[in-house]
């Protein structure tokens, strides 16, 4: 049974993928990037996420390929560990425990068994000083190893990891901090430092922002705050160093990168222009403009054919060497602030919020994938620091998802405010929103809130603004002319004693409109535009307003900074009120439930209640430590049927919320999560088998097996895959280079497809296979271990035949075992029909 403690807060989706430079695999088929506490492996061709390497418990702060084995990757994390992964199969190979939070990692071929880490030894994390430390990785067969051999290379390095670079195959290391560039030669064990004036005559800012070293030449490229790039040469002595300057960027150079051959230097900055400088021929450059947000990092593949730029709008762009964009990997864009509410597109059930400047983004929470951006502002974005740009500040969908209203605003800080109200119609043909009406001066002051009426037939939009008015907008309100039917125009202007309206809300059947004016709630009839009544419960300005749904539709909820009130609209009297500061009130569109986030004594609590009964259905103390201002109920894909009282509210929809730190969190049930995981896993396997004649053959075979097996599995809604087909899948999925020779496999495989008649023959074959598997076991010790455990599991599995559902622990074990190579071999033994 589901316990109350099973509902927990889970971080979900949309982590930053632009924190650190991404890494190409050697064959440039994959690109790896740090994403929250995992490392994601994307295909450069299809831009799909292949694996998510999970295991770190804190932000992953760096990834780099293992120079000794190009199929392995090191990742370091702020949780104080470095992990070695096989990224093609998504297996964790080793964990090195460092013990201090690690901020960056670099390796070189010359220093075998050594990794260089940037970590802060100081106990107080505030101090910016980081140390560069060389760590000797102990050679131990164990999974978790503690790396103790730390030797400091240098201290006081910049906290920006792009200010440190290994040069010329690891001969020296260059690191810059503020106005000083230091070069440490490993062989000489000597540091040279070069410093620049803080400002030159023209007032340029000279501070270093990034460092890159030429792969074959003795040359260091440094980027500066004023947009200059300096190429340092002859730096292996104190005095006679030289540098040349390249200047194109008008703002700070964020990143520099040499191509692997060293023929070109790539640079990027806030302008979002990738600049390619020809090395040696200074000032010969190629530009690739308008890539997206500011360029934060650039990575080049080892063959120099592909570049990958990370952008500030949480995006990776894969660029071919002939400067053609060939792929975009987009994460959930979270700027400094979510100005629009979190919304759900009623059609695609995608999360909608403002993303790139001037765009609305549609993000699928289920697949954790960015769907598309809708360009709201439709203007050229100027990449310049400190420029006041148009931002989408409000957006709202109507109930069917056929209309979208947006407000874009510019000049909030300065006095001359510009804003537009835009209405978008959903176009079935193009499957996206098309601009229908632009209203240039909808109000004389900022729009505070807006909402669509919830009735199915007629759509009406109500906006409230700081000019003390609320306006109702209708489609084709002046229907004199036949063509103008589709456009929106003002239908009604209302105000109440010149008070400033704060919020507005339509009742579930949109027969009533509630508009709050500071302390007063006014109820209007949208049919006649008559004010029906006013409700007032001082003190405090009203923040949120919402009507109850379904059986509670006679209630109206309002929050002030002190209390939460519930009004009965039949009696026009206060039903109940509690003194709690509610920062966000969110009704569930599919049930009567309302979620209230309250912020008290430095942590946020969640209450879920029905307006008809003041006792909450569910309470969760200390959800997070920040205020919650944005939340949304997302309809479940398929309704759950929890009968437990405390988790019933999650049956129809799931609650997501956004903290002030821009973390997207959700409430989740443990069992559900497991179900999701297993189903997604299965999905991956099923999808990845291409439809070939071979597959069809297999599929037929599998069907037969399933038919055989069905009687025993009638009870379970999702039958476990028969072992035989699973092993064949493993066979298909194991990389070819680790498989035994095809000649060995072939006869076995073909035999496995046959329906044998005699038990004698079967026994013979199985003995054959056992011989084979023994041969394999000799190959490595690890694998033998794996096989042993697999055989153990078999024993358990036979017990499980009776009760098909495995226990959780067993399932986990099964998963782990599946990951190891050759486990399918033993499975093949059992697959004999």
């Amino acid at each position, binding site marked *: 049974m589901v316990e109350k403690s099973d509902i927990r807060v889970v971080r979900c989706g949309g982590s930053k993928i632009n924190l650190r430079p991404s890494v190409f695999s050697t064959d440039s088929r994959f690109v790896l990037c740090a994403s929250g506490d995992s490392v994601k492996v994307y295909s450069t061709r299809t831009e799909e996420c292949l694996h998510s390497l999970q295991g770190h418990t804190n932000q992953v702060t760096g990834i780099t390929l293992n120079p000794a084995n190009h199929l392995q990757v090191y990742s370091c994390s702020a949780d104080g560990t470095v992990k070695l992964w096989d990224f093609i199969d998504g297996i964790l190979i080793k964990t090195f425990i460092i013990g201090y939070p690690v901020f960056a990692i670099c390796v070189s071929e010359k220093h075998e068994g050594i990794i260089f880490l940037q970590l802060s030894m100081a106990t107080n994390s505030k101090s910016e000083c980081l140390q560069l430390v060389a760590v000797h990785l102990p050679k131990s067969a164990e999974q978790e190893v503690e790396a103790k051999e730390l030797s400091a290379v240098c201290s006081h390095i910049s906290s920006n990891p792009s200010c440190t670079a290994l040069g010329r195959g690891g001969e020296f290391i260059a690191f810059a901090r503020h106005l000083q560039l230091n070069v440490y030669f490993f062989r000489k064990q000597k540091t040279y430092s070069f410093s620049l004036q803080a400002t030159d005559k023209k007032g340029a800012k000279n501070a270093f922002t990034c460092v890159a070293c030429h792969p074959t030449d003795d040359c260091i490229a440094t980027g500066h705050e004023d947009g200059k790039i300096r190429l340092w040469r002859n730096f292996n002595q104190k005095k006679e160093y030289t540098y040349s300057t390249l200047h194109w960027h008008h703002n700070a150079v964020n990143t520099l990168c040499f191509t692997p051959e060293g023929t070109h230097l790539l640079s990027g900055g806030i302008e979002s222009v990738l600049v390619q400088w020809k090395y040696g021929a200074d000032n010969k450059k190629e530009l690739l403009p308008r890539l997206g947000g500011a360029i934060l990092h650039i990575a080049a593949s080892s063959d120099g054919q592909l570049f990958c730029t990370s952008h500030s709008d949480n995006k990776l762009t894969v660029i071919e060497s002939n400067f053609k964009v060939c792929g975009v990997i987009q994460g959930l864009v979270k700027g400094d602030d979510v100005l629009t509410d979190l919304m759900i597109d009623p059609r695609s059930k995608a999360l909608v919020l403002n993303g790139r400047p001037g765009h609305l983004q549609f993000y699928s929470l289920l697949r954790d994938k960015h769907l598309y951006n809708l360009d709201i502002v439709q203007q050229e974005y100027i990449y310049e620091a400190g420029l006041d740009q148009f931002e989408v500040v409000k957006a709202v969908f109507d109930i069917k998802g056929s209309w979208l209203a947006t407000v874009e605003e510019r000049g909030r800080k300065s006095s001359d405010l510009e804003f537009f109200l835009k209405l978008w119609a959903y176009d079935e043909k193009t499957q996206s929103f098309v601009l229908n009406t632009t209203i240039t001066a909808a*109000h004389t002051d900022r729009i505070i809130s807006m909402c669509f009426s919830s009735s199915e037939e007629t759509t009406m939009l109500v906006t409230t603004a700081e000019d003390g008015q609320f306006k109702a907008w209708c489609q084709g309100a002046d229907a004199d002319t036949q063509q*103008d039917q589709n456009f929106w125009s003002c239908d009604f202007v209302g105000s109440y004693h010149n008070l400033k309206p704060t919020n507005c809300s339509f009742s579930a059947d949109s027969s009533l409109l509630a508009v709050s004016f500071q302390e007063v709630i006014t109820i209007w009839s949208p049919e006649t535009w008559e004010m029906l009544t006013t409700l007032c419960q001082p003190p405090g300005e009203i923040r949120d307003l919402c009507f109850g749904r379904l059986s509670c539709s006679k209630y109206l909820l309002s929050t002030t900074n002190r209390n939460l009130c519930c009004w009965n609209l039949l009696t026009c009297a206060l039903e109940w009120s509690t003194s709690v500061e509610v920062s966000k009130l969110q009704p569930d569109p599919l049930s009567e439930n309302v979620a209230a986030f309250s912020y008290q004594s430095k942590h946020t609590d969640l209450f879920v209640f029905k307006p008809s009964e003041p006792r909450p259905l569910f309470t969760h103390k200390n959800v997070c430590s920040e205020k919650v201002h944005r939340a949304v109920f997302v309809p479940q894909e398929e309704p759950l049927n929890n009968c437990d009282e405390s988790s019933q509210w999650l049956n129809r929809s799931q609650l997501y919320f956004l903290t002030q730190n821009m973390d997207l969190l959700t409430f989740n049930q443990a069992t559900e999560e497991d179900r999701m995981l297993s189903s997604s896993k299965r999905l991956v396997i099923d999808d990845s088998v291409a439809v070939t004649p071979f597959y069809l053959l297999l599929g037929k075979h599998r069907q037969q097996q399933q038919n055989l097996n069905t009687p025993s599995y009638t009870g379970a809604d999702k039958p476990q895959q028969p072992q035989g087909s699973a092993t064949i899948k493993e066979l298909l999925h194991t990389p070819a280079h680790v498989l035994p020779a095809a000649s060995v496999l072939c006869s076995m495989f073909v035999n496995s497809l046959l329906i044998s008649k005699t038990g004698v023959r079967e026994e013979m074959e199985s003995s054959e296979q056992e011989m084979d598997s023994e041969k394999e076991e000799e190959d490595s010790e690890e694998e033998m271990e794996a096989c042993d455990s697999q055989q153990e599991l078999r024993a358990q599995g036979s017990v499980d035949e009776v009760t098909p559902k495995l226990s959780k622990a067993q399932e986990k074990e099964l998963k782990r075992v599946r990951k190891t190579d050759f486990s399918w071999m033993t499975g093949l033994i059992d697959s004999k029909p």
Partner: protein
Amino acid sequence: MASFKPTKVQVLPKLGEKVTEDTLYWRNYKSPVQMKEFGAVKKIDFSPLPPHNYAVTASTRVHIYGPHSQEPIQSFTRFRDTAYCGTFRGDGKLLVTGSEEGLIRLFDVSGRVALRQFSGHSKAVRVTSFLSDGLRVVSGSDDMTCRVWDIPSGAELKTFTEHTDYVRALAPSKLNPDLFVTGSYDHTVKMFDMRSGSSLMTMQHGYPVECVLLYPSEALLVSTGGRYVKIWDLLKGGQELVSLKNHHKTVTCACLSTVDNKLLTGSLDRHIKVYNSSYKVVHDFDYDTSILSMAIAPHDEVIAVGMTNGVLSVRHRKHKKVNETLTSRRRRGPSYRVFVKGKNFVPRQDDFLVSKPVKEYLQKHDKQLKSFEVSKALDTALQIWGRTNKPEVTVAVIMEINRRGTLKNALAGRDEQSLSKILNFVLKHIFDPRFSQPMIMVGDIIVDLYKEVIPQSPSVERLLQRLMDVLGGETELQHELLQVLGILDTLFASLTPRKEVAALAAPPVDQGSQLQAA
């Protein structure tokens, strides 16, 4: 890689009148030709036969004009007193007129002397017409009677004395030779039947009736009088269908357009209004003085309007010129073959297809904006204004430059000529509510930038002086408007009954200025 997004030119709708097919149709007339008559033009009637000459009754004359003639091609002048209501017969050969002295004269259109004279009315005969058989004449007079006359014998056939005041309006039925409708100053409209000798129905208009009009189907009747135009349903026994109050002075005349029976009404308030089939005003013609009479030629080719000061104003319909098609043919670009060249090429199996990127076309100012040449872009935008006289693009470019924060740079460092060009632009559009915001901004920046050097250039100084003058005038005007608004507010407040209405819809003036929905 996203491509450059060109400057978005906002298309703002013009406030007020909306352009519809009807307005386009009624706007499609040439500017009016004006002809001076000797007195107020009381009646205009088009001949039903082509070339559709028209008879104009004014003072003591009836002139007949050809459709394009400036001079009368025929005139009947032998009236001792004012002539009234020269009306053509259905075949266009005869013309009947009434007169102040009470005589009714019948003319042959080609002759000069009256063929018949019907006498019997004791007072002025204001309205005369032929019944639809063409053999009888019906007349209405200030002696409160309507009489029907037989043309061959010249005898009076019947007298109707049901009206109690002057009879000033008359409309014979075209379908039935025995029916006609009269309107009188006794506020009634009556339909008479020759066969019964009395009125069939009576409709109360409520004001002295100036004009009556039957629809071709003769199911609907229009009567005008006072400020009202009323439509009556005759098939329902004279039920009032609509009452229109679109004029603010007496409606003196009405007629139907011949193409799709649109109603036109003319009034002493100097306007002719055109109504659509649901009786909403779709177009409005404005004249110099009060309108007394109006007529429209078949196929709406000509609208002739007579006014109180004796001016006859004639508008002709515009027709597409034939030579236009010739020029368009000459201007045609490359032939079809050029465009389809190579388009239908089917690549063979082992051909390697190199796709050419689609080249996007950018306007010149967008190209300059793309390369951050804001000053040049502004110049280009001003050139566009000079060429097309449409300020939208120029304003859009100014807004775009302002959004980039470089408007100051774009305006700085200009010589006298280019600066005066910008100032001219500002002067012209600063009062357009759609553009005033950016124009004020530009003006501000110019004054800021050039205040030291302005005295060096007299032409720029003059322009700035003018700008100051018009701004002063505008603020004064706005001030007055606000005062008027205040007066109106008090009026509205005193008019509305004391009710607990918290909100009142904003006055229409306010709303109009705010509503600029695209």
